[in-house]
């Protein structure tokens, strides 16, 4: 039968000679030969790829390809190129004063965007993604600053940390008035009533009066006569609406009793982040809305 083809009676076209289910046949509509050549060409093309690029897995590794290409090296190159393109910004940030930087919209945008990225990487775990803070971790959006809210203050706080063990760390320690039995529970309650009255919160007037005397004796050294705090000592302003450890009476009593010692630690970023990054972070945090 070879060499003899059946021709379909209806179409007049030759069949392939293949028959299925006894009577099912197909017409021979030949594919253009060049289409086959295109297939061969793609195979040859793929051989070129095997030679030039990493291709075949081996027992221990893979064929590297003569171009020595790898996606990792490409990323490394891209990162280096990105760093290179940032050089003029980085140099400008290092050289210029924050107030000066703020006047350059391009530079400021670089600082704010870079600051946001660095904040997310380094600061967000404690202060939150939006820098909103948590109990014991200050909200960086507001206008209340324990250690001062200028860019320089913030920069120093980031660089040296708070109770971080760094040589220039910011240090403050509220005495443990209750635990160390300096004050009795009643005295602490009276003091808390007075402290809350500083921000206009109602309370028992005689208790506040008693608390005022204790405050004058025990607290003014750090928090000041009017309870407005001292940024140099990290002593908070007690007259405003912002409370790091909560503004309820029980919260304030707890703070006086325990001094909240041993909890508030901000790491020193000196050495972990480069000075330009720290400066960018300081400007970014300052620009969150509450900077002084």
């Amino acid at each position: 039968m070879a060499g003899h083809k059946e021709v379909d009676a209806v179409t007049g076209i030759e069949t392939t000679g293949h028959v299925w289910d006894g009577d099912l046949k197909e017409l021979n509509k030949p594919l253009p030969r060049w289409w086959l050549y295109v297939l061969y060409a793609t195979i040859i093309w793929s051989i070129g790829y095997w030679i030039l690029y990493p291709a075949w897995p081996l027992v221990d590794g893979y064929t590297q390809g003569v171009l020595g290409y790898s996606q990792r090296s490409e990323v490394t190159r891209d990162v280096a190129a990105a760093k290179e393109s940032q050089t003029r910004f980085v140099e400008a940030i290092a050289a210029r004063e924050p107030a000066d930087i703020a006047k350059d919209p391009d530079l400021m945008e670089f600082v704010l965007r870079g600051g946001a990225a660095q904040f997310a990487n380094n600061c967000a775990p404690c202060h939150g993604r939006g820098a909103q803070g948590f109990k014991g971790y200050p909200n960086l959006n507001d206008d209340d600053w324990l250690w001062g809210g200028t860019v320089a203050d913030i920069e120093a706080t980031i660089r040296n940390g708070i109770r971080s063990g760094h040589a220039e760390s910011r240090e403050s320690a509220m005495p443990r008035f209750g635990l160390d039995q300096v004050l009795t529970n009643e005295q602490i309650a009276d003091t808390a009533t007075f402290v809350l009255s500083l921000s206009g919160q109602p309370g028992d007037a005689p208790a506040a009066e008693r608390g005022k005397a204790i405050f004058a004796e025990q607290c003014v050294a750090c928090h000041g006569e009017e309870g407005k705090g001292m940024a140099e000592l990290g002593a908070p302003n007690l007259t405003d609406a912002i409370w790091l450890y909560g503004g309820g009476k029980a919260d304030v009593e707890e703070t006086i009793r325990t001094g909240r010692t041993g909890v508030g630690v901000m790491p020193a970023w000196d050495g972990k982040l480069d000075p330009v990054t720290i400066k960018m972070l300081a400007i970014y945090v300052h620009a969150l809305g509450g900077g002084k």
Partner: protein
Amino acid sequence: MTRMEPASRFNRTEPVEAAPGVARIDVDAVSSKAARSYYAARQPIYPKRAEGTFRTVKWVVMAVTLGIYYLLPWIRWNRGPGLPDQAFLLDFAHQRLFFGPIEIWPQELYFITGILIASALGLFLVTSLAGRMWCGYTCPQTVWTDLMIAVERFWQGDRNARMRLDKSPWTFEKIWKKAATHTTWLAISLATGGVFVFYFRDAPTLARELLTGEAPIVAYVFMALFTATTYVLGGFAREQVCIYMCPWPRIQAAMFDADSLLVSYRGYRGEPRAPHKKGQPWLNRGDCIDCKACVAVCPMGIDIRDGAQMECIQCALCIDACDDIMGKVGRPKGLIAYETFRNMEAASEADRKPVRLVRPRTVLYSVLITVVLAIMGWAWIARSPVEISVIEDRNPLFVRLSDGGIRNGYTLKVLNKTHQAQRFAVRADGIAASELAIVGHDNGDAEIAVEADVVRAVKIYITVPATARADLTGVSTPLRFVVTNLATGNEVIRDTAFRSPGP
């Protein structure tokens, strides 16, 4: 080809012995030499030169389309300083598309979508009215193939000369004629590929860069790509592209109906076909003298007299060829003509019905085109030269300040699509005592400058002091940003909300 009984090997019921005791196995070599015909080599086509109305139209269309393609990037358009002065530029690097006075930003790409939809519907309409006009006259594959064939004809002569040349051994004449043809093809291809990249970058600059070797590598890659495809598809693949690669011929049959004007052979007039000798009567025979002029001029290598077929691009060259012959033998022209399926079934000229151009199908396509163009036109007219968007801070939603006030943060984006720097005043309406501050601006400075043709984002803080907390209507108080163009006084408004723990 001999006609055979059906392949019998599976039908064969009784095994045959090859020799006593040796069964003859019921098998054929699947890939026997004789069976290897599943791939067909391309049969070269030597289209003969046609002359006539449609050939002239095709020359004009070729000149216009190629003229537009090659010259468009060189047209200048002054848009002012800092902007490209190329009339037609797809500036991907700066995310702008420029079409003369029209400038499209990335978020306005729906205009391109609209143009593409209208174009597709336009193609449907033309196809339903007059068949494959696109394929026959304006498709780049057709135009460049036509050009390549013209070049071939210029160097090697018309159909018979080319066939003779191809059959002849490699003489000096054959070598130089072929070399000249391919050199011209390559020059055309190079120009095609070269011009392509000019649409994406300032043409005079890029031309200089290409010549001095300073152009971006991607320009050379695309230039090489389009040079190669023009040379291969126009010079060699030709009709193979239409038959085997392009999906459009398979789709467009859906747009034909009984009233579509298609290039057709009027069988009722032509048949029975037979050669005609001078002086013989034309009675009891068709007008077709079977001269095959229509076949010889066909660039697709088909016989139009076989009826409508997928391979026919309806370039109408067979009409020219046949009209020429009909003139010579003294019969009426139009044996091959634009004709409808309905009239193809007519028994004679007298039975022909007028062509219906207005049909549900063409009305529908026209209405759809009008609707799409109207929507796009309206969108273009309503396009504001300045747009703003306001993004509320979500984390934190609000900030409690030391004096008990509440602050919200917003990112205000101002798109200045004009070609001049603009100054805008920003204010927030809705909460009487609220204070607005723009990051990086002095207190009370609520004006922002936006350079020409850019998007400027500014961070804005709205503060409601403790004393004004009563103005807040709940956890969310409506707030409206109003951005006023200081030069024109035009206001752009965006409504948003002020979040708080409550009044």
